[in-house]
């Protein structure tokens, strides 16, 4: 036991003696593994969310021109911009269709901070099945219901008031503040682990009021839009937003227009049917000029395929980083071996065997690898744990920071195996060094 302690003291002292090289080696392994872990966590969260949404809303009807992935991202995950508008009648028709068991309107145009404001109705919120505090009926156009993350991050609770910003997600799209329309928080959802945690819900009628209905009194300034601010001076007075759409018919180069949801316009309709065949029928029927109907389950599969490919690419690069880290550790170890010839020769002269010295070198390398693996695991899970809210907002799905992704065990084992190989190479090199003979020759 005391020999083991002495052994470890020597190893730790040696690693401390070349602290920079040790830290770089440990970090190289850790970063590679952390990338694999984070990719796994994010992939899992998105896949889970996509699967659940596909089950819950098997049909989405949105504007023509958007891809299925864009529609899924904007409607389910709230992380992409809606690509156009559809008439409210689409919702009404779907709702009356005997094949449809539930239909919900979606009118997304504004945001508060980085969180989207989704215009819908109380039925949608009840259908979420989430527990909540307060009232989620969205009876009045000023009522708002907050997702759990929104309430926590914006420090708002029932009774709080806020105004929305035109555009999505606090980016350059967020054009100007709707100062005349104040929302009052009527309810707060408990955490669900879904995109609703990072969303604000209001009545679709509120969205209409703000963007061109009777309640639309104009915009207060066009923040951050530069030249466009001048172009929209006429917004101040217009009452009928349809005029605005006619007047500014330049959607291709002007995202702003996309978010002007005047009376009778939605960005999507979510629908549930009795069986999958009906989804297929409805998809055929609603895929017509001006509309795109998405079979969510099918779209989710291709979406997942796309995301899995992205995950594989990330894992590939993480693997590459790991290989580079292993090569780095080997190079550093071998260089250190050369630099330490005299010290190692001294140990030999003191009677410490060749095998013991080789074990010392192997242990040093293994400690670096194991430290990298442990740190990589911790970083890969602690960082998502610390930034769970932000990542959740970013990807539109709540993450489980301690979820072990499919590739993570293989990456961890791979790193340990690589470390073992590097350690063995270093050990063999150390064992074959004829330290005394060489020093005697010189």
């Amino acid at each position, binding site marked *: 036991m005391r*020999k083991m*302690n002495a052994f470890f003291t020597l190893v730790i002292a040696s690693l401390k003696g070349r602290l920079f090289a040790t830290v770089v080696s440990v970090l190289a392994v850790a970063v590679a593994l952390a990338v694999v872990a984070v990719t796994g966590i994010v992939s899992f969260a998105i896949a889970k969310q996509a699967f659940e949404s596909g089950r819950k809303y098997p049909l989405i009807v949105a504007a023509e021109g958007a891809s299925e992935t864009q529609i899924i991202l904007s409607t389910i995950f709230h992380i992409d911009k809606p690509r156009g508008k559809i008439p409210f009648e689409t919702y009404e028709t779907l709702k009356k269709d005997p094949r449809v068991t539930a239909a919900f309107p979606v009118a997304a145009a504004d945001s508060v901070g980085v969180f989207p404001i989704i215009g819908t109705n109380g039925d949608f919120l009840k259908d979420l099945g989430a527990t909540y505090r307060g009232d989620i009926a969205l009876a009045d156009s000023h009522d708002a219901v907050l997702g759990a993350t929104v309430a926590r991050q914006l420090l708002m609770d029932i009774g709080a008031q806020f105004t929305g910003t035109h555009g999505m997600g606090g980016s350059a799209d967020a054009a100007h503040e709707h100062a005349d329309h104040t929302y009052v928080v009527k309810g707060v959802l408990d955490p669900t682990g879904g995109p609703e945690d990072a969303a604000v819900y209001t009545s679709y009628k509120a969205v209409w009021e703000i963007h061109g209905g009777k309640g639309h009194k104009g915009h207060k300034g066009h923040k951050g839009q530069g030249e466009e601010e001048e172009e929209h001076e006429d917004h101040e007075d217009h009452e009928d937003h349809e005029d605005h759409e006619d007047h500014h018919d330049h959607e291709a180069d002007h995202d702003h227009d996309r978010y002007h949801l005047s009376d009778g316009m939605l960005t999507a309709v979510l629908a549930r049917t009795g069986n999958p065949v009906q989804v297929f029928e409805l998809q055929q029927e609603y895929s017509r000029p001006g509309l795109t109907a998405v079979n969510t389950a099918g779209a989710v599969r291709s979406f997942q395929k796309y995301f899995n490919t992205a995950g594989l690419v990330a894992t590939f690069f993480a693997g590459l980083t790991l290989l580079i880290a292993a090569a780095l550790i080997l190079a550093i170890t071998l260089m250190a071996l050369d630099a330490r010839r005299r010290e190692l020769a001294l140990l030999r002269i003191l009677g410490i065997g*060749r095998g013991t010295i080789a074990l010392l070198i192997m242990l040093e390398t293994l400690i670096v690898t194991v430290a990298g693996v442990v740190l990589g695991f911790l970083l890969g899970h602690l960082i998502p744990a610390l930034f769970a809210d932000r990542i959740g907002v970013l990807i539109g799905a709540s993450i489980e920071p301690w979820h072990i992704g499919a590739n993570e065990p293989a990456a961890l084992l791979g790193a340990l195996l690589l470390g073992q190989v590097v350690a063995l190479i270093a050990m063999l090199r150390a064992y074959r060094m004829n330290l005394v003979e060489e020093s005697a020759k010189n």
Partner: protein
Amino acid sequence: MQITLSNIEKSFRDPSGSARRVIAGISADIAAGALVAVTGPSGAGKTTFFNLLSGLLLPDSGTITAGKTELTKLSERERDRWRAKEVGYIFQTFNLLGDLTIIDNVVLPHILIGSGAKGDLQKRAVESLTALGIGDHLHKYPHQLSVGQRQRVAVARALLASPRLIIADEPTANLDDASARIVADAILALRGRSTILLASHDGRFSAVKPDLTIALGGEAGHA
């Protein structure tokens, strides 16, 4: 420890591939506890001679017997063990492990080679380092000490396990006068108890008459 050298020879191949004979046909009987002066010009093979006697190298021919052990018949591992137990080695320079504290430099190698219990080794190391005038520097690192202080640490380590053979290769070279005196006194104090093989140009050692002189140089050394 009595040592018998019987016609030992050692050559090295230089980079061009030609053999260079460093030790040529040395024979000697060294009595236990003797002080042996090993002399010869620089490059005469003194270090190689010491490496042969400590079992670090094997001669190309001839035998070395230390006590009842014939070194030339032992495996490398057995020679390592024998050296760890029986030999205290002091060199001119580069005696310490730079990443270890002074106390660890003295004690750890002995723990690794199984010279004794940690507590006992630690106690003796502190006593020895204190006697050598560096008891206040136990937890410093070698680079924080002067050359003379570092050499005293090396002496403490070499003598800690009471070795029966002490090899001192220019132990006082480059030392300040005070350090050289302390080191020389510590080595010479063991005369009679340990066999001492000493190579030195220091006048402190020249003033002491050795029991035996082994002169190396040219093609062959002689005793």
